[in-house]
């Protein structure tokens, strides 16, 4: 079945620093155009470099994983053993499923060769000869673009038995998932790619030692890997300078969704003030309403209230200091006419649906949270439910097999704690105070 493809509209703002989004809308899907715009220079440069120098350049850039966990990319590459009997692999995680996150899809859509180039460089850095680009099942319509780009790269000789005529071998395979959020977890991604149930693996061994098909494997997010070519081309120091410090280097694609006047994907430097992001880049909250809550980086992060949202800076450190997470770049503004119980419910519905079912706390916990929140929102809540929900979420956090349990627990914990009063307003059979507005938002 052929999917009808409509290009995603692009947004822009003067504060943007366009490093990875600079080719968006310039026809870079076409390999010749990509080369015209400076493409594949970094890969050629990397071919002349020593593997350790490539890794050191990435280390110096302060680049951290853009999928949400924020692990230092250069460090991750350096964990791959130099000598290995089993083949090494590069695996690109394009299972972009974190709610509110829609950046990788733009990269695949508008700049697929940047991903390919990044994979080649990663392969040269760690000594891998095969890379996999795994797209989420729902991105099947982007697969054609990705596959064409890979095919074009083969035709040009950028991939294959002798890349860029160097005599060195590198191949790329593409794959799509079957539509499971859990597969965005790196070990479940490998299981899925190997054709098994998308369940997380036990760690250790970590993928860098024993990953895909038992070989040492680098797993990077699409955005992370697309950032590698400009770093190689311009140097780590150049890249890190865009962020506030060496641990928060560069820029990232920030997806503004929810109650923004100007939603869209913007490339903002790390450390960008959240207040400016909300009111200037995102154009503020529509309909003259006020901001009530902000999801800082995908639904798995702790929600911020208005005060916190207006004082935050969008970098890893600000959140880490609070024991929270910057997340995946999916920023959701929630206005003051939105029912937070319903927000919690909507988020929990997602996790309940997506829990793989492997471990007990997540499988049963998300289900009971969803059931309780549903009843609560429908007016059937009793006072002890509020603490019971916190209890359930607290017993999931930190105790599940993979991070999905945490991801499901954190938003619930922060919502119940910060907006407990709204929960109390639902008690005793009272109708939801926000119901008409919430319905308009069609959040459920």
């Amino acid at each position, binding site marked *: 079945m052929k999917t009808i493809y409509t290009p995603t509209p692009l947004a822009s703002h003067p504060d943007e620093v366009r490093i990875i989004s600079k080719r968006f809308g310039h026809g870079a899907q076409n390999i010749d155009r990509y080369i015209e715009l400076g493409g594949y220079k970094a890969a050629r440069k990397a071919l002349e470099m020593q593997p350790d120098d490539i890794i050191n350049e990435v280390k110096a850039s302060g680049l951290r994983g853009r999928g949400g966990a924020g692990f230092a990319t250069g460090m991750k590459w350096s964990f791959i053993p130099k000598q290995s009997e089993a083949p090494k692999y590069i695996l690109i995680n394009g299972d972009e499923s974190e709610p509110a996150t829609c950046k990788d899809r733009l990269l695949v859509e508008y700049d697929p060769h940047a991903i390919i180039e990044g994979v080649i460089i990663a392969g040269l850095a760690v000594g891998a000869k095969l890379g996999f680009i795994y797209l989420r099942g729902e991105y099947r319509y982007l697969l054609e673009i990705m596959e064409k780009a890979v095919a074009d790269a083969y035709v040009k000789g950028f991939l294959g038995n002798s890349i860029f005529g160097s005599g060195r071998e590198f191949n790329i395979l593409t794959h799509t998932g079957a539509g499971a959020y859990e597969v965005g977890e790196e070990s479940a991604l490998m299981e899925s790619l190997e054709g098994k149930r998308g369940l997380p693996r036990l760690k250790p061994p970590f993928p860098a030692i024993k990953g895909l098909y038992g070989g040492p494997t680098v797993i990077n997010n699409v955005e992370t890997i697309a950032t590698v070519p400009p770093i190689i081309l311009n140097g780590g120091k150049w890249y890190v300078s865009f962020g506030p410090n060496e641990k928060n280097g560069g820029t990232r694609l920030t997806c503004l969704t929810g109650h923004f006047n100007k939603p869209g994907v913007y490339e903002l430097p790390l450390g960008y003030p959240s207040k400016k992001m909300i009111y200037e880049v995102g154009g503020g909250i529509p309909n003259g309403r006020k901001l009530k809550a902000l999801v800082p980086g995908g639904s798995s992060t702790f929600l911020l209230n208005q005060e916190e949202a207006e004082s935050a800076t969008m970098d890893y450190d600000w959140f880490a200091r609070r024991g929270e997470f910057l997340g995946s770049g999916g920023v959701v503004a929630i206005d003051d006419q939105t029912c937070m119980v319903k927000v919690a419910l909507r988020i929990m519905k997602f996790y309940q649906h997506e829990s793989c079912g492997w471990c007990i706390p997540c499988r049963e916990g998300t289900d009971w949270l969803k*059931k309780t929140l549903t009843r609560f929102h429908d007016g059937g809540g009793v006072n002890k439910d509020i603490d019971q929900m916190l209890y359930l979420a607290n017993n999931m956090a930190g105790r599940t097999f993979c991070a999905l349990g945490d991801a499901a627990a954190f938003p619930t914990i922060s919502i119940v704690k910060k907006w407990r009063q709204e929960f109390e307003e639902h008690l005793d059979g009272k109708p939801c105070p926000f119901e008409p507005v919430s319905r308009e938002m069609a959040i459920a």
Partner: protein
Amino acid sequence: MADVTITVDGKKVTAPAGTLLIEACKSAGVEVPAFCYYPGLSVQGACRMCLVRIEKMPKLQTACTVPITDGMIVITATPEVHQARKATVEILLGNHPLDCPVCDAGGECELQDMTFAYGAAESQYMESKQHKEEQQWSPVVFFDRPRCILCYRCVRVCGEGMDVWALGVQNRGVASLIAPNKQDHLECEECGMCIDICPVGALTSGAYRYKTRPWEMNHVGTICTHCADGCKTTLGVRRSKGGMEIVRGDNRDKSGINGDFLCIKGRYAFDFANSDDRITQPLVRRDGKLMAVSWEQAIDHVANRFKQIRDSQGGGAIGVIGSNRTTNEENYLLQKFARSILGTNNIDHHQTADYPAFAKAVAGKQNITATLREVTTAPAVLLIGNDPTEQHPLLAWNLRTNVRIHNGRIYIVNSGDIKLRRQARAYAQVPMDGGESLMVRYLGGDDSVASQLQSSSLSRDLLREFRDKVKGEKELIIVFGSELRGDDVFRLVKWGSAQSAKFICLGDYSNSRGAADMGLYPHLLPGFTPVSSNSAFAQEYGSLMPGQAGLDIQGMFSAAKSGKLGALYIVGSNPVARYNIDPFALKNTCIVVQDLFLTETATIAEVFLPAANAYEKAGTYSNTYGDLQLLKKAGDLAGVRTDFELIVRIADRMGADVHKLVPFGKGIRADMGQSRGAQSGEADQHLVWLSARNLEPKLSPFDPEALLDEIQRLVPGYNFSRLNLFSGGDVHTLAPEFSSISQPSSPESIVPANDTLFTSGTLGRYSNTLNSVIENRQATTVEAQIPAD
């Protein structure tokens, strides 16, 4: 690996580095609860019950996934850990139906135990529980989805343990469920391991479900009476109107040579014991019909006939056929009775392996036989012939475990495509009918047979590679089936012992090795001692015992046909069916049958004496590996007598000196589990009989232990320590230390039973469970064929 020391709740524990923390805790006496963790199966980390606090780790850790490292400090007894476990139990109970009062697992349920330990007294949820209807997956496996806690033990034991892979997981999240491999039913070996390993009552057995409460049963650990592996099985026994009823078999305490393994026969096929077809009254033929008589009448009849025939025609006119399922003591007693009282060497049994040849080949060699346990850890095993998956399920399990956990190398020579091929390092598929024998010659260096062994799947290079690999093995166990007999066995042992291999000879029934060891041969006394030799037996058995070999089974039937056999005493055997004997050939012979059922042989008997089965008596069994184990009595069936008692009673009535036959009266009455059954009225019966004869009621002549001294004293290889045996362990009997064994019996006298996983000779025919599985498989096969047409 090097040992490391960790601290668990303040206690120091030393264990090899890499040991899983949960196991290290266990050795420190600290129990860490777990649903999904199961020793020997792959690690899951799914249930999160084994969370513990490890110093310097930010989060609680699962003890089942963490290998210990030196200096690790672990705390399990903290409110935080307790709370985490409690929360897990609470959340499981959220959807778990609280039908414990009727659930099979009630009382032995791990979820109940965890609830008891961690407390989850209040229900916090208002929503209704998820319900799903119960499903039947096979004649023995039922699945109750709501009770399932998804620990994946069943999936793993079926896949990793059994290599059957009949179970998997369907759907995801809270909708996940265990599902069979063929839409709605299982196509598997029906071993019931999944049911046994289920921590809750989600998987239940068709044979046991809703029959009883666990605490209503007596639990008797005894030995399975089916194949020759000798698995320990714990029988759940209840009183019933006929005496006792066995309702369950398992081995949850993992004692015995099989750990928790049992196949379908060990787990379910005890049900022949309560078959409606059991005969519980002695029968004597009157006017051409078998009529019920009293025990006194029946024994009198038999004794008079035997005495009269012996005295008029000599002992040579009487034949005796023993059993592969009676105990060592009974077998010993039977041949002693035959030789010293009936005065005949016409004694044989259904031979399923060439044990005499094996005994002669290994005679006098040290460390030459392997135990069944050793197969699990041996670095290499060579299997020649046989299909252990069907015929020796525990051996197959041990071989799989070896490959999976101990990285053992399995080499297989077989004429078929047996399932264990999947575990084999190298597989030589040899021609049918004699291929194994040729292979033995080839292994021994005879290249001239290579051309006969070669086939499209076995090139000359592969053959040579196979031989080189096996020859390179320094610690090899060689296991061979009844395909190898006579000279092949000698050749194999000669070749293998040159590289210090150990050997295992496979026979077919629970005590076929015991029957051989105890001398149920026309030419061999116990311990494979030739009848013609001037042995200790000759001196003790008295003057009636002939010095020459007697008739074997075929010889006896020929003699009967020509009218030279006056009486045939058949104990626990069905030769008429097994050897396809024409019943009319026996019309002039007085047939006395001791058995459970009216078999083909029993229907032509003059006297039928209803006997107890292995679960209704005590004694010892030797499995085919030579591992001796204690049989404990599970209970009585009213109306039947043990073969031991019957032989003694017949001898007594013939006027023989019972004291000489069974040296009882000495020693202490340390029973061999005789009185531990559900009903122990047996002791009183003995007392009445003994006092009527002015005998000392210390060690009864019906107590098999009274013979054990003599067996240990006289039978080569059986001079073992009793301590381990009486404490429920297994002892390996040694190879006889002399080599004067006579020539083996003729290869034609060996008739393999060819049982499958679902058959077990006569007993199997009376097992409802085995029959229902066979019928079900036939039905499924027919169904499966329809769409193909």
